[in-house]
């Protein structure tokens, strides 16, 4: 075990996989000479050279499509989105090319592609640079979608994503890059895609949360413990495929659930998880499932409004108390 930041864990994962497999390369805006806009690729150009660490012009659709084409010929591209907000420019390549070529070709071609980069609410970056982008991807059959919340998960899940034979959308969190944690040193440390984890054991209520919301939920759980509410927290880690069994298993134990989501709530991931719980564990529930989500507005710049946009600890705590009849 080593203690490192989330950012360093991603960097180590990339290095290890590039050392292990010469077919892996990294391509994106400022990944090489600039050492990465968020320094995730720091030092990679020096170690692997410009054949495998490729700076691109600003053309997200173009270079994402290059990744898809290269994957068709057997390479394993890691495409960096400087931020996932820019991935909308590549949405057609991801949704219509990467996700569907395996199916449309009857399995003749598969696309082992990772598209990674930061996403989610950030600090005063306003409407176009501060949003939860997973929504655009997890609806699509053929894609896998990962949102790693801790440094160890960042490493183990990125390595699994690179080794996966399918297109994987891997959305990191700008606000978590500096978070530190213990990370296994084993170069074959992998966390399988599609495996949730129970972050905190509890008996009274299940809270489902990932990324920034997870950390907020942990703080709320500690506070509510003083009131005698025992909160269990499940982190899905992979949104597609989703490990519904772990979520449902927890709800069967606690009989109550609150689902957190940083992004706007309408038709969001919280809706899907709440629906799954209701369909599969209705008889186990002692109260209706509640969602606490981002407000249905674009992200404002003004600090006071920004605070109102994303679920606060107070709102989360209030929902938990309501569902627990406290």
């Amino acid at each position, binding site marked *: 075990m080593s203690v490192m930041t989330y950012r360093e864990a991603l960097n180590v994962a990339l290095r290890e996989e590039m050392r292990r497999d010469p077919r892996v390369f990294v391509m994106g805006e400022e990944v090489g000479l600039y050492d990465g806009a968020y320094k995730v690729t720091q030092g990679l150009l020096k170690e692997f050279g410009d054949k495998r660490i490729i700076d691109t012009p600003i053309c997200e659709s173009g270079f994402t499509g290059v990744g898809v*084409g290269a994957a068709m010929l057997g390479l394993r591209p890691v495409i960096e989105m400087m931020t996932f907000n820019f991935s909308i420019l590549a949405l057609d390549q991801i949704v219509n090319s990467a996700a569907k070529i395996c199916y449309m070709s009857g399995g003749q071609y598969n696309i082992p592609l990772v598209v990674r980069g930061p996403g989610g609410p950030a600090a005063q970056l306003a409407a176009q640079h501060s949003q939860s982008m997973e929504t655009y991807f997890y609806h699509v059959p053929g894609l896998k979608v990962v949102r790693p919340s801790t440094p160890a998960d960042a490493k183990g899940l990125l390595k699994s994503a690179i080794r996966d034979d399918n297109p994987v959308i891997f959305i990191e969190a700008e606000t978590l890059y500096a978070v530190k944690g213990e990370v296994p040193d084993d170069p074959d440390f992998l966390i399988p895609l599609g495996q949730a984890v129970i972050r905190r054991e509890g008996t009274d209520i299940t809270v489902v949360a990932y990324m920034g919301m997870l950390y907020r939920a942990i703080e709320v759980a500690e506070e509510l413990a003083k009131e005698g509410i025992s909160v269990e927290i499940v982190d899905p880690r992979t949104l597609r495929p989703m490990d519904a069994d772990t979520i449902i298993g927890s709800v069967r134990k606690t009989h109550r659930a609150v689902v957190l989501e940083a992004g706007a709530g309408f038709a969001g991931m919280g809706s899907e998880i709440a629906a799954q719980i209701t369909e599969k564990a209705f008889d186990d529930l002692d109260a209706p499932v509640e969602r606490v989500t981002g407000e249905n507005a674009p992200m404002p710049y003004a600090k006071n409004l920004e605070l109102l946009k994303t679920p606060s600890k107070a709102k989360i705590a209030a929902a938990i108390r309501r569902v627990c009849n406290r």
Partner: protein
Amino acid sequence: MAQTKTAPPSTRLDAELARRLLTQMALIRRFEEKAAEMYALGKIGGFLHLYIGQEAVAVGATSACRADDYAVSSYREHGHCLAKGSDPRRIMAELFGRMGGLSKGKGGSMHLFDKSVNFLGGHGIVGAHLPLAAGAGFAIKYQGGDQVVLCYFGDGAVPEGEFHESMNLAALWKLPVIFICENNRYAMGTAIHRALAQTEIWRFAETYGMPGEAVDGMDVLAVRDTVGRAVERARREKTPALVEARTYRFRGHSMRDPAGSVYRTKEEVEREKLRDPITLFSDRCLKEGVLTEADLKNVEKAVNDLADEAVAFAEASPEPPPDELFTDVYKA
């Protein structure tokens, strides 16, 4: 950097080559006519975009390549897939939505893929496969190979951003990709002068510092020569090129626009049909004494048989079983 116009054809036409080119063009023509018949009978559904009139482009370009070179195309790709050497029976079965199809019936007319002949697919979103072609070129270079990629698209893809992004990346990174624009003058129903500020499409090559040429897309030998030069250069120097093949589709955009008569005149269509690439080439072969009338008859008979066999194969092929709905969503 950019060159204008074509040099005179340099290909020496012998009987073997003439027979091969003619057979491939005639096979595509007959296959497409059969497909139209099958569509009318309700055996083929959805969108069906025929390649009739443009046969010289796919056949001439493919004849300038090696078997291990790659090709990728849009949704009007039956001709490119056939020229690449794919089995017409499996293509027809794909159009029928049957298990014997190239993709087990899951792709259909617009999404033919054949890994066995390095055909990287038919892609349905205009312009979207151009970055894929650049990616294939990138992979060839990364792997140290000397293959090239032929990337076919219509004039309708030129205003798309991905055309420009891909041309820029291929030139910037020196990728072995031949961009072949089949200019049939209409993006669906929009005439080229209503879509492009620069209608001389080959001139876009200048912008990106790569060789560009226009060629008569109704002349299979001219296409073969022009693409051949680009292929040799790409193989040797890893340089991309843009070839504008000036052609014409004799049918409408798709079977939902059978005559294509709303946006073009009957006179124009009839005039263009006088330059039918198959007739032009047959006449030339006869005139130069390379092929005989009997040879032409044999070619016709051979392709008729192949098209009939394709239909029979497709008819006999079973529908995909229900579990195929879920296979290939992900690679296990």
